[in-house]
């Protein structure tokens, strides 16, 4: 039971980061039906910028919280700029082009950003300075650290903030209007270009925070980290119903949980020797006690398994039917 609870805590932490990244995918898709494959790279750049700042400030003796906050404060504008530039330079010129063109451009932007980051920050795995003291709290047998609590809290706050922005402000109304029909929204006096740019910038800012959280949680950053994180977040967005904001949040958390539980239990479940009749068939192979078909290295597979299952059985995702609410 302790193990199960602990896996839930692990999954919840990873899942809330996925959720925040997934928001970036889903917002952009909702408004211009583009899957921005470069979003994972924005997250990576957020983590890298934060790494540089935190690394520089760590020896100064400032309080760890202040250092991380300054790091985040630097990462956000950089990512916003990256988000704005890619919309302005790479996607806007192609807005009326066939849908395949911007999609391929997105992949191109992703490769471009990855290699730029490689030139700036090298190929090495960068280790975040360990400045935060980990304090563990025990919660019914599962331990949860202050960092994990902070990550979950920040993610919930960001999601809440975004919901307020989308459903309670003028910009949010304009975003929803543009999502429903950009031409009509334009006729109603909405500056469509500005709204789309704002969507990219907000998504990038969320990505920056997610990058910092991911980097400080695992303690490492590398120029390639954005691709797998981005693909997982994209799967989360599809799971929840791409284009749907609450869907991305739900999808992210669910994906985190599926992954943690999957990686935690697949080894035991696929241990052929644990099943009496198969063990008899296997004979000698089981004398050592175990014959594990799938180990925990299949952890990353779950995200894509989920993606495939959703696409086959429920292409619109869990909350995907609320098409009208897209933003």
């Amino acid at each position: 039971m302790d193990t199960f609870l602990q896996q839930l805590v692990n999954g919840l932490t990873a899942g809330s980061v996925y959720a925040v990244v997934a928001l970036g995918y889903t917002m952009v898709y909702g408004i211009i039906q583009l899957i921005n494959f470069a979003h994972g790279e924005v997250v990576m750049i957020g983590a890298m910028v934060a790494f540089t700042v935190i690394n520089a400030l760590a020896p100064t003796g400032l309080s760890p919280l202040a250092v991380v906050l300054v790091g985040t404060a630097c990462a956000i504008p950089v990512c916003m700029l990256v988000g704005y530039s890619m919309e302005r330079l790479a996607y806007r010129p192609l807005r009326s082009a066939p849908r395949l063109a911007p999609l391929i451009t997105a992949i191109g932007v992703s490769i471009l950003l990855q290699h730029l980051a490689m030139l700036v920050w090298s190929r090495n795995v960068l280790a975040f300075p360990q400045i935060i003291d980990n304090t563990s709290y025990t919660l019914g047998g599962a331990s949860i650290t202050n960092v994990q609590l902070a990550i979950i809290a920040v993610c919930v706050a960001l999601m809440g903030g975004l919901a307020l922005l989308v459903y309670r402000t003028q910009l949010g109304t304009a975003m929803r209007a543009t999502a429903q029909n950009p031409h009509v929204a334009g006729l109603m006096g909405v500056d469509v270009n500005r709204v789309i740019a704002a969507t990219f910038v907000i998504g990038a800012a969320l990505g920056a925070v997610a990058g910092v959280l991911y980097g400080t949680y695992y303690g490492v950053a590398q120029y390639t980290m954005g691709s797998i994180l981005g693909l997982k977040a994209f799967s989360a967005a599809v799971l929840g119903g791409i284009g749907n904001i609450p869907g991305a949040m739900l999808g992210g958390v669910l994906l985190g949980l599926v992954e943690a539980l999957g990686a935690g239990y697949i080894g035991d479940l696929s241990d052929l020797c644990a099943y009496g009749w198969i063990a008899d068939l296997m004979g000698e192979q089981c004398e050592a006690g175990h014959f594990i078909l799938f180990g925990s290295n299949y952890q990353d597979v779950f995200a894509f398994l989920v993606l495939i299952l959703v696409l086959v059985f429920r292409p619109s995702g869990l909350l995907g039917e609320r098409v009208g609410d897209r933003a």
Partner: protein
Amino acid sequence: MNDMKLGITLIAAAVALAACGEQKPAAKAEAKPAAPSALEVKIGHVGPLTGGIAHLGKDNENGARLAVEEANAARTRIDGKEVKFTFVAEDDQADPKTGTTVAQKLVDSKVAGVVGHLNSGTSIPASPIYNQAGIPVISGSATNPKLTEQGFKTQFRVVGRDDQQGPAIASYLATTKKPKLVAVIDDATAYGEGIANEVEKTLKAANIKVLPREKGTDKTTDWKAVLTKLRGRNPDAVFYGGMDATGGPLLKQGRELGIKAVFSFGDGACTDEMTKLAGPASDGLLCSQAGIPPQAADKRFLEAYKKRFNVDPILYAPFTYDAANLLIAAMQKANSADPKVYLPALQKIDFTGATGKIAFDEKGDRKDAEMTIFTMKGGKIEPIAIIKGGKTTPYAEFVKGAK
């Protein structure tokens, strides 16, 4: 609009070029014309001089270069003639393909012997080329067992093998920490799985229970699911076969989850980098490296190296120094620089170098190669024991004995 597209294309092209630009031309050898009466003998060295581990490649090269320069300064004579040794240094970029190219280049330029390559990944594909040409090659740092398992008479190494390293760390763990239950994890690479298998075999032979193998990948950063599962089984020790980039997060997350077990690693994660990656959690980890730390090498070598290159040797320089000296010693013994003639002398050599006594077994592996066990103390890995021929010697005693 078209300008903009052009601009993006240009940026993309520039980046692509920059990415390709890393393939710098190989370092050229300094071939000076020899005095007419002297016998000219070329000795090659191959290691990565560009890329992520260029500093290690340079360290290896320096070791071999020092040996060759010393042999020249000592006016070594072979067959009655004074020998002028020429040092030919090549860059394999730690890339298997480039490794075979430069191997062919060395063979074509008629080197008498080669020191290298640094990596197992480049040494293995290059070895048939040297074998076919009949040119002896001695690696001072390639630890993959396969290198000397191919049956090539020309292939030697002066460093230990991975399948000696696994047993070394496992037996150290078994005898000093006396665990009852050990969890073994690997990163599903040839290296990680190989060393983890050896560790598991040794532990089981010592009647220590081993949990079913857990696996990650060489890119895994989230180990929480695996570690949570292990925490439920409560092992006394954990061994991870993999590199520091994944081992650091593993250790850090293990401590966060409150796992009290001793963490142990192979040479891939036996670096100071572990402190940065795992923070204070890294203190007390155990890890192994093939060979002996450079500080434990012969004092005369250390001083000569420092004097010549103004830096201390980093990792394998004492081994490449010995490798080059072995080639020269075998030539002197056979009284010929012809590979065909001196190869048998090299196989039977009995030599004392900067890293101790060297003799080869029939495969070309060093007999009784040493392994070193390290622990992390205050952010630096420190040698604590040397294992040789199944015998464990505390490091301090070993160093005293060597001097």
